[in-house]
Structure formats: C-alpha cells, structure tokens
C-alpha cells in the first residue's frame, strides 16, 4: 500500500503547531495579561501557574521547525527567509521573555519591575509577530524559481498586522481562561472580568479573517463557498459558534475548567480553518506540499521515529501536567 507521505507529514506538522498553540498560547497570554493585574502577589501566582510546564511547551515549536525542514525543506527554506524579520523578532521576544520570566524571581527587589516589563514586552512581541508571520504567510510569498524574490518588508500589510493583533487577543483569551481554572478569589474574579471583552475581540478577529481572506484570495473563497465544499466545511464555523456560545455561558455559570477548554477548541478550529483555506499549498500561493516535499527516503526515515516516539512524549507531557494539577495560591512555588 502506498501512503501519501507529504499528506501524513503535513498532519504531523499541523499537530506540532497545534500542540504549540495549545501549550504555549496560554502562557504567552499570561504575559499579555500582566498589565491588567497590578498586585505583585497576584503576578507571582500568574507566573507560578505556568512555571513548571512552559519549558517543555516550547519544545513543540522546535519540533515544528525541525519537522518542516525534514519533510518540506523547500518550504522551510523559502518561508523562513521570506519572513525573516518577523521571525527574528518573535525569537528574540521568546528569549527575552523566557529569561525575564526566570530572573524576575531572583533579581534584587529594585530590579523586579524591570523584569515585569521585560516579561510583558517579550510576550507581546512573540505573540504579535507569530500572528504577523501567519498573516504574511497566508498573503503569499513571492518566488522566482525556487527562491524568495520579494522585499525585506513584504511582510508588512494591513492583513498581517490584523492577524498579529488577532493572535494576541486569542492568546490573551487562552491565558485568562487558563487562570480562571488555576486561580481563586480576587484574581479569578479579575480574569472573569477580562475574559468577556477578550472573547468579543476574538470574535472580531475570527470574523475579520473569515471575511478578509476569501475576498482577497479567490482560491480561498472557492474552497469554502463552492458546492459541495460548502456543505462539508460549514461544520467549522458552526462549531466555532457553538463553542463561543458555551464559553460565554460557562463564564456565568461558575465552572472553572470549561471556559479554558472552550477557548482551546475555538483557537484550534481557527487554526484548522486556516489549514483548510491554504491546503494543499505549503508555500502559498503556488507551491504544494507534494512539490516541496523531501525525497521519500527522508520522509520515511523521519516518519518512523516520529510516529513511534510522539505517543511516548504525550504520555510524559500529560503526566507532568497531572503532577502540577490544582489551584495555585499565594506563596506557592518560588519561595
């Protein structure tokens, strides 16, 4: 039996990206939410909720990068070069934020305010430029032959800035619903307050992208609105609407885990929707996954290990989250 290896690899990479968004999205969101919480102890609690897990979270981003290089070397080469500036800024944001996150707890008292700002700045920068990168990617990449031939600033467009803001609000919503689950009392109340307007902003972002992309790209309009695709694919927006509705209801009902789960589903559906829009392109708008795929010898060799090892990794990951489950309180953790 002949497998469609590039298709399987696309699924693997989407899975790694989804894992990254699930796992790093909320902890970037916590950095974005920092300015809305002033109390130092509350800020300590916010950080401690993600402290034990965020290291491992970023490994999924490394896997996404390495997997893309293994399976679609041409896409890895062209896309990362074309989006050079936003990717470098994103990486610097992640470094800065990661280390700021650490040093905040060890710095002398007088320097802590500085590391708070660095944490906010790094998180906002990383989230915004992930979104910008995504928007610029959807907009398409100028090629001549097999090399990027556009300009250094091609990534700047109204659409990419809009998706930058969209990813920021989506991560902030993941962060606030995560904190509803992981905290209590005053901080939890505060997060309930900020989640409602955030959901509104996420709706605007989702609607914006859903209207903007089919208008700008006829191929995307055709993907979603031609028959019979329309019937098959309409479950995506329907599920988004149901999830949004249940998220708003759960915010009122006082369950503390459900809002986070609903928020995750919404963000993943958004990601899935974009994948449907772009498929089968891997370098939009002209190069497909089959054209950019590595030789079968590479795809097979890497796939064997990937499929064998990822389940084991998932077991570790779930286990480590279970070790740290439960509410985080003032005074827990660092001292």
């Amino acid at each position, binding site marked *: 039996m002949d497998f469609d290896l590039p298709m399987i690899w696309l699924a693997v990479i989407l899975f790694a990206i989804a894992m990254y968004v699930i796992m790093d999205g909320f902890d970037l969101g916590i950095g974005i939410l920092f300015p809305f919480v002033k109390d130092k102890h509350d800020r300590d609690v916010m950080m401690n909720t993600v402290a034990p897990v965020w290291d491992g979270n*970023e490994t999924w981003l490394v896997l996404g990068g390495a997997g*893309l*290089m293994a399976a679609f070397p041409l896409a890895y*080469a062209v896309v990362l070069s074309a989006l050079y500036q936003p990717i470098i800024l994103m*990486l610097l944001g992640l470094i800065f934020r990661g280390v700021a996150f*650490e040093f905040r707890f060890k*710095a002398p008292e007088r320097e802590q305010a500085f590391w708070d700002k660095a944490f906010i700045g790094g998180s906002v920068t990383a989230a915004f430029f992930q979104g910008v990168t995504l928007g610029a990617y959807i907009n398409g990449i100028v090629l001549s032959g097999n090399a990027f031939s556009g300009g250094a600033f091609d990534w700047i467009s109204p659409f990419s800035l809009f998706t930058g803001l969209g990813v920021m609000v989506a991560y902030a919503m993941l962060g606030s619903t995560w904190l509803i689950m992981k905290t209590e009392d005053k901080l939890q109340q505060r997060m309930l307050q900020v989640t409602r307007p955030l959901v509104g902003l996420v709706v605007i972002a989702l609607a914006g992208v859903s209207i903007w992309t089919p208008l700008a790209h006829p191929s995307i309009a055709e993907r979603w609105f031609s028959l019979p695709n329309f019937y098959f694919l309409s479950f995506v927006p329907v599920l988004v609407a149901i999830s949004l509705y249940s998220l708003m209801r759960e915010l009122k009902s006082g369950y503390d885990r459900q809002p986070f789960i609903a928020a995750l589903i919404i963000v993943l559906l958004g990601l899935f929707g974009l994948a449907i829009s772009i498929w089968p392109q891997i370098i939009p708008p002209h190069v497909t996954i089959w054209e950019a795929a*590595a030789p079968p010898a590479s795809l097979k060799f890497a796939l064997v290990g990937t499929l064998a090892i990822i389940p084991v990794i998932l077991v570790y990951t779930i286990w480590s989250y279970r070790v740290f*489950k439960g509410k985080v309180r003032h005074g827990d953790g660092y001292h």
Partner: protein
Amino acid sequence: MPDISALDLARIQFAFTVSFHIIFPAITIGLASYLFVLEAMWLKTGREVYKNLYHYWLKIFGVNFGMGVVSGLVMAYQFGTNWSGFSAFAGSVTGPLLTYEVLTAFFLEAGFLGVMMFGWSRVGPGLHLLSTAMVALGTLISATWILASNSWMQTPQGFEIANGIVVPVDWWAIIFNPSFPYRLVHMGIAAFLATALMVGAAGAWHLLKGQTTEATRTMLSMAMWMLVGVAPLQAVVGDFHGLNTLKHQPAKLAAIEGHWEHHEGGVPLLLFGLPDMEAETTHFSVGIPHLGSLILTHSWDGRVPALKDFPPEDRPNASIIFWSFRVMVGLGIMMIALGLWSVWLRYRGSLYTHRGFLRMALWMGPAGVIAILAGWFTTEIGRQPWVVYGIMRTADAVSNHDISSLAGSLALFVAVYFFVFGIGISYLMHLMRLPVRHGSPEPEGGPGQPRQPMRPLSAPDASFSLESQSHNAKES
C-alpha cells in the same frame, strides 16, 4: 566597512549565536553525567557529602540548562531564515537528523528533568536516580544527533544528487560518516573536561577562601581525577581526529599547519607564524623540524598537504585557524599539566592547600569552554569555503537578504545575547560562590495540598542580596 558583504554578516551572525549556544549544552552534558555519578555514589556509600554536592550542582545545572533551551530555539530556525540555500539543498538530510534529536533527546530531557529537579522527596531513590540517568542520557543522545549532522556536512556520504538536491540513499552511511566517530568522542570528552575544569575551579575558589570542607575538597578531588584520566586521552583522540582530517579534508589540515608548499625533507611543526592568505606564505614562522611529518604521517620525511595544492578559492582561512588550533592545543597541554600537578600534590599530601596550584585550577576554570570554542572555530572555518564539504559552497547556501536586514538582526542578537546571557552567566558565577549546604533543600508542601514546585531555572531559591550576605557564614 565597505568590504563586509551580506554573506559575511550572515556568517558572523551564525557564528555569534552558535558560539553563545554551544557553551550551555557543553556544560549541560558534563554536569548531567557528573550529577549522575554523585547521586550513584550517594546511594552506594551513603555519605552526606555526595548528596549535598548533588543539590549544590543541581541548581547550577538548572540555570545552565534553561539558557541552553532558549539559545537553542534560535538555532532551530536559523538554518531556514539565513541559510535557505543550504536548507533547500540538504534539508532532506539535516532535517530528519534534527527531528530525531528533538524526539529522542529534547523530549527525553524535558520528561525527566522535572523529577530530577524537584522530585527528591516525591519519588523513591531508585526512580530519582533513573531520572538523573535519563536526563544525562538525553544530553548524550542530543550530542550524537547534532554531531552526526555536523559531521555529515564535513565528510558527506551516503547520498546522491538529483534535481539539484541531496537525496539520501543510505542512512547508516550518512550517520556514521567518516568524521562522526572522532568528532563525537572528541566533543564528548571536551564537554566532560570543560565541566571538570569548571567544577575544579569552584572547589579551588572555596579552598582559597579558607572554606576547607569535605564538600569543597571532594569537588576539587573529583574534578582533578577526571582531568588526570581524560585530558591525556583527549590528546590521543585529537590526534586520531587530526589524521581523519588529513585523509578527508587535507586543505583544512594544511591551513591549520600554515603549510604552503612542498619542500625536500620533512615538514616542520610551526609553533608560531602569521599565515598570510594574500602573500601565500606564513610570516615569522618558528618551527620544530620534521615534527609536523612525524605527528601527521608518523614518519620522518612524510608528505603533508600544502595550501598551494589547492586553488585560492578553495582554501580555508589559515590566518584564523592556524591560531585557533594552537589555542585549543595549548589549553589542552595546560589541562594535562594541571592534572599531572594534581597527582604530584596528592602524593605529597598538599592537594588542598598548595596555593599556586589552587590558583592555577581557578584560572583554568574557563579553559575548557575556550578550548571548545577554539576547536569549533578551527573545524568550521577550516571547512570553508564549503558548507557541505566539496558539494556546496557557503556562498550558495546563504539566503539572499539585503545588508541592512542582516546588520539589523545581527545588532539585535548581539545586544540581547550580551544582556540576557551576560546576566545569566553572572548568576551562574554567583551560585558557584555560594557555600555547599547540608540537608535536603526542598520546601515541603502541606499534606494533601497540591503544591507548585519550582521550575528548573528557579531552583536557585534565594535572592542575590540574601545570598551574598550569607555566603561565608554557613560552612565551618
């Protein structure tokens, strides 16, 4: 600087980010194995000193590991952002190897790191030792994959070229390419040496300050035993690695030797010289006759490749690697000397009190890291002008960014790295100046309370101001 090209800037950026990065994983590899030995010794002998040292170095390990993770993230993307020609051409080989590194090493380390760092009182001693062993194993597996990938770029085989890209034919041959075993052993030993020198320097510092405890003595003693055993071995492995280079990358070897043309009789070993790529000669050379031939060919008059055997556009920059190689070897000789001195003092019974020796051990603290950087500069610059040796030139590998983009990103990397990792390294130094504490350092959670253990980088628990006041007080 009108002479700087976009290619130069991209190379400087890669060299800068990878040089910063390599320091952290090298120390991580050494410390993880050291921690495993300490924990195994504690379980075997029941001596408190091993447990106390374990917890002491575990904090330093945590900070170092975290910096390795963040600086490594950049490397995973930089092949694509800056070297798209290379990635499109050889990603079919490099990509799968890196994917295996992430899957078999990074996740293994992440999976067991939590228990290693915080599980001391949560799991049994056997399971805890197993966690330390798995983290140590993860660091070694990581080194294996990344060095297989790098070695393939140095001595590529097991592939064919079709439609302008590399097509893997034999993965066994790709991974076990000719320079891989030598590079793996050489780098593995280098990581152990660098760590031993760092641990030894910390021990020496405490002893010089009069903090003569069983812990500080054990620190120095174990580090020196490692040095005695391994530094001479490294010289032998280095010799084999050099012979491998002679066989597969003769131009690199000629540049290391500063050797330009063939003469009658044997080749000298140059101790000093200024290789000049323009004038095609090595100025002011001072050498020992015949020794070059003797070392490289194991014969008195053996022929050694000369730079003029290769067209100018295929020559690596001898001005740099002539010296980076000598820095590495010079430091290696000093490591062997320090090890021998330690044996002598041990025999005389003054290992822990001889101030001259302790000062040398202190000053040699960074020598391993510097030697690693010098060695990598030698082998990487020596591979030039090729990115994949003999197959693809570095100039064809680079992404086509304009100079201002690259200058901007390089400036940002330099600013952020010096600031962030500068602070991180100062923090490591600070931890190494703290006294070794007794007893279990872990805060206990209340019964039935799900507590929030600290994450790796947060293991160092006190603030700067508190620690510096207490660092002389505890031990006696």
